[in-house]
């Protein structure tokens, strides 16, 4: 049986791109004999995979949606694994004048007042969710975009919000983190980015992005990751036992140490959350 | 009967290209199919070859009605083979072109090779056996296509102008082959041609088509003419500006100015010139050809236009017409048919 200890995990592309899994999973296999097949997608699609029972476990960073996922009975419970943080990056010239300030809300207000170009992922990902919640907090007037769809005979609305100036200084591009970052770099614009992706694009490439960190350290910018085994009551075929074993290994001493020791280009990226 | 055709109609769009109330084709005979361009010869061969369905009408093949379901046709097509007017060879070697039909008939390899060599020999194309078929010259292609069909020893052999681009040496050979397979293997042959002497030489029966209909006329002396009235008000038909023929009033059916004219060669009278003045429809001309044909004698006279006529052997021998001589033709109105 040991040879067949294979589970499938859906996760976000940024998690896969960070390289952590490439260190973590071989250790896991050594310890428990579990092989994890990783399926990386956009946050929404990754959660969909969980809901449809196409995977056994899910590793994402969108806390509110994760809680809802569990509430709806798709997952058993959420293991808080780790967090990293978001930062605001921008062109060295800093046209909005936000450099050195750790207050994200103030920074966002300045983007709006200076009409400084800002690139939004606009893809309903963890990062985009975070960005939308910051816009809400600024108290600026935000516009709501609604699309109606049909689901099992019922109408459902899909909404997302953005500040005024869409298409003008606020660019919503609906792409992954890496692409958003290069986009901002091309257009010399600001953007909200997770630290891992930024490090890769700043220090991991022959031609680094010009963008620099403008704003970091606000507690509001924390980006927690959770792992959720899929509920076997919803999907009897899932390998719940293995998924649970995997989740527990992640939050164990051993797993957490590996996470804490992971360095991307010499920089720590993830902070373990399970250590009391 | 190998074929019995009744009430056959073939239309392309609104145009009726074939309209044959009844036609019988006897077993083991050679038929020549004659007719002007567009008369429907190829169309008829395609229908008899079971490659096209008629628009209306019935065809009996070997006394059984033909069922135009594709599956039913396939077995019949193994007995009937058609060589196209401009045959096409498959883009491969000459050999493989011949092999195709034999393979289909599941003939074993040794036998196949023997038949192919033999058939190519017949048409004098053996040395081209391994040549790529698509580069052959016009006549070579035609000969290979005939060999390809012959190799299958069909019951019915349909040939659309089998010798049209074949050289003189091979024309004779192909005619000999057709006669031989008809005699030795009892294969029914139906071929089209524009060479009526070839038809006369080879065929037991002749079918003439005109605008899709069977006509009892012979296939010659067909001219394009223009209708006029002569100074005296008599209707007249002028052929190629050279021959003026009076015609009966009743023959001017409609006011078409350009008509096809058929002059029945059996109804033309001929005599040596005399001092008598020329009467209407009497023409002088020089004899240019004298040909023996089915017990009669066919003379071609250059009277500005070349006109053919048929006379009995007796009369020919009695009067002794000679090539190069000037003679007088008289064409009675009843010999002239406007079509």
């Amino acid at each position, binding site marked *: 049986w040991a040879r067949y200890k294979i589970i499938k995990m859906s996760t976000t592309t940024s998690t896969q791109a960070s390289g952590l899994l490439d260190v973590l999973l071989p250790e896991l296999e050594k310890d428990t004999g579990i092989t994890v097949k990783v399926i990386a997608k956009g946050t*929404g*699609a990754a959660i969909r995979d969980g809901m449809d029972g196409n995977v056994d476990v899910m590793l994402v960073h969108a806390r509110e949606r994760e809680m809802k996922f569990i509430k709806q009975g798709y997952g058993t419970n959420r293991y808080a694994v780790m967090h990293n943080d978001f930062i605001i990056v921008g062109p060295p010239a800093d046209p909005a004048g936000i450099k050195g300030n750790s207050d994200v809300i103030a920074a966002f207000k300045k983007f709006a007042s200076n009409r400084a170009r800002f690139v939004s992922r606009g*893809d*309903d990902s963890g990062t985009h969710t975070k960005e939308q919640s910051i816009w809400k907090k600024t108290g600026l007037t935000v516009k709501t975009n609604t699309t109606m*769809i049909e*689901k099992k005979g019922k109408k459902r609305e899909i909404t997302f919000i953005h500040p005024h100036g869409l298409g003008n200084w606020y*660019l919503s591009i609906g*792409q992954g983190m890496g*692409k958003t970052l290069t986009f901002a770099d091309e257009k010399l614009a600001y953007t909200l980015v997770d630290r891992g992706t930024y490090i890769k694009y700043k220090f991991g490439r022959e031609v680094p992005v010009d963008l620099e960190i403008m704003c970091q350290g606000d507690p509001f910018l924390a980006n927690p990751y959770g792992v959720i085994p899929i509920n076997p009551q919803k999907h009897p075929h899932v390998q719940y036992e293995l998924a649970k074993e995997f989740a527990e290994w992640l939050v164990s001493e051993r797993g957490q140490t590996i996470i804490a020791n992971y360095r991307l280009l010499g920089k720590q990226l993830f902070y373990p959350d399970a250590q009391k | 009967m190998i074929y019995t055709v009744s009430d056959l109609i073939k239309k392309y769009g609104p145009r009726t290209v074939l309209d044959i109330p009844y036609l019988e084709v006897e077993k083991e005979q050679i038929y020549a199919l004659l007719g002007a361009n567009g008369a429907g010869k190829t169309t008829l061969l395609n229908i008899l070859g079971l490659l096209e369905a008629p628009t209306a009408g019935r065809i009996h093949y070997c006394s059984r009605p033909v069922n135009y379901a594709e599956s039913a046709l396939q077995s019949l097509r193994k007995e009937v083979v058609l060589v196209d007017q401009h045959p096409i060879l498959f883009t491969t070697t000459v050999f493989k072109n011949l092999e195709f039909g034999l393979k289909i008939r599941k003939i074993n390899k040794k036998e196949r090779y023997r038949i192919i060599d033999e058939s190519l020999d017949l048409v004098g194309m053996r040395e081209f056996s391994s040549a790529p078929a698509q580069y052959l010259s016009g006549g070579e292609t035609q000969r290979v296509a005939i060999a390809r069909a012959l190799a299958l020893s069909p019951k019915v052999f349909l040939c659309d102008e089998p010798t049209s681009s074949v050289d003189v040496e091979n024309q004779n050979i192909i005619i000999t082959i057709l006669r031989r397979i008809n005699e030795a293997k009892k294969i029914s042959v139906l071929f089209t041609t524009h060479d009526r002497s070839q038809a006369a030489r080879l065929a037991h029966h002749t079918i003439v088509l005109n605008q899709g209909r069977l006509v009892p006329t012979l296939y010659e002396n067909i001219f394009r003419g223009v209708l006029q009235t002569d100074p005296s008000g008599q209707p007249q038909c002028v052929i190629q500006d050279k021959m003026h023929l009076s015609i009966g009033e009743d023959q001017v059916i409609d006011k078409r100015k350009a008509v096809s004219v058929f002059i029945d060669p059996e109804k033309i009278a001929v005599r040596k010139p005399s001092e008598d003045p020329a009467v209407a429809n009497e023409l002088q001309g020089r004899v240019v050809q004298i040909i023996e044909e089915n017990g009669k004698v066919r003379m071609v006279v250059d009277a500005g236009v070349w006109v053919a006529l048929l006379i009995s052997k007796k009369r020919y021998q009695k009067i002794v017409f000679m090539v190069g001589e000037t003679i007088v033709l008289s064409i009675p109105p009843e010999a002239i048919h406007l079509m």
Partner: protein
Amino acid sequence: MNLLIDSFISAIRLVVSMDAELDAIVGVSLKVSCTSTVLAGLIGVPLGFTIAFSEFVGKRMTITVLNTLLALPTVVIGLFVYAFISRRGIFGPFDLLYTQRAIIIGQAILIIPVVAAFTIAAISRIDERYRKTAMTLGANRLQTAWIVFREARFGIVAAIVAAFGRVISEIGISMMLGGNIKGFTRTMTTAMALEYDKGSFILAVALGIVLLGLSFGMNLLFHFFQGRVHSQ
């Protein structure tokens, strides 16, 4: 199956409501795809003709290379063009990146081999006599090509239709070179990819259905165009 039914209804609702956003997306898609198809046609068809009509050493090898280019992945084209038109590339100053023009360039590169390869295939079966006949009637190269084109038009139009289908359904290049900017360079496909990433599968498929409808419309146009040419 639910997915399909739901998507279908949503697609109809989308079209019926015809909101400004969908409007814009459809507009961008059509404009970009049609332009790149026309461009590729203008380059690819003559290219195909030139290759098919000339006799030169390595002709068959050229065709093989062309066929290889049919496997050019959109990511490679995207990165390739990106390298030229990015801020740091030689065409950087033209500020082409993340514009519709950038998409058009990339898409044209994608389908020129398709058009050229199928043009060659279409011409190669046209009876040599058409060319010969045109020549003996006094046609120059262009007029001769026109005759052969007329005869091969069914195949060439098929190539153009396929090329159009390829670009209107293409994602990679539109995403990388257009940037999927809402209201500017968002096409039907990048919008679909986005909805998919968001997990709104229904909306994604609904957009796909709209796209197919659109493409059906374009094909009907081709169909009638071909019909007219045919009946001439």
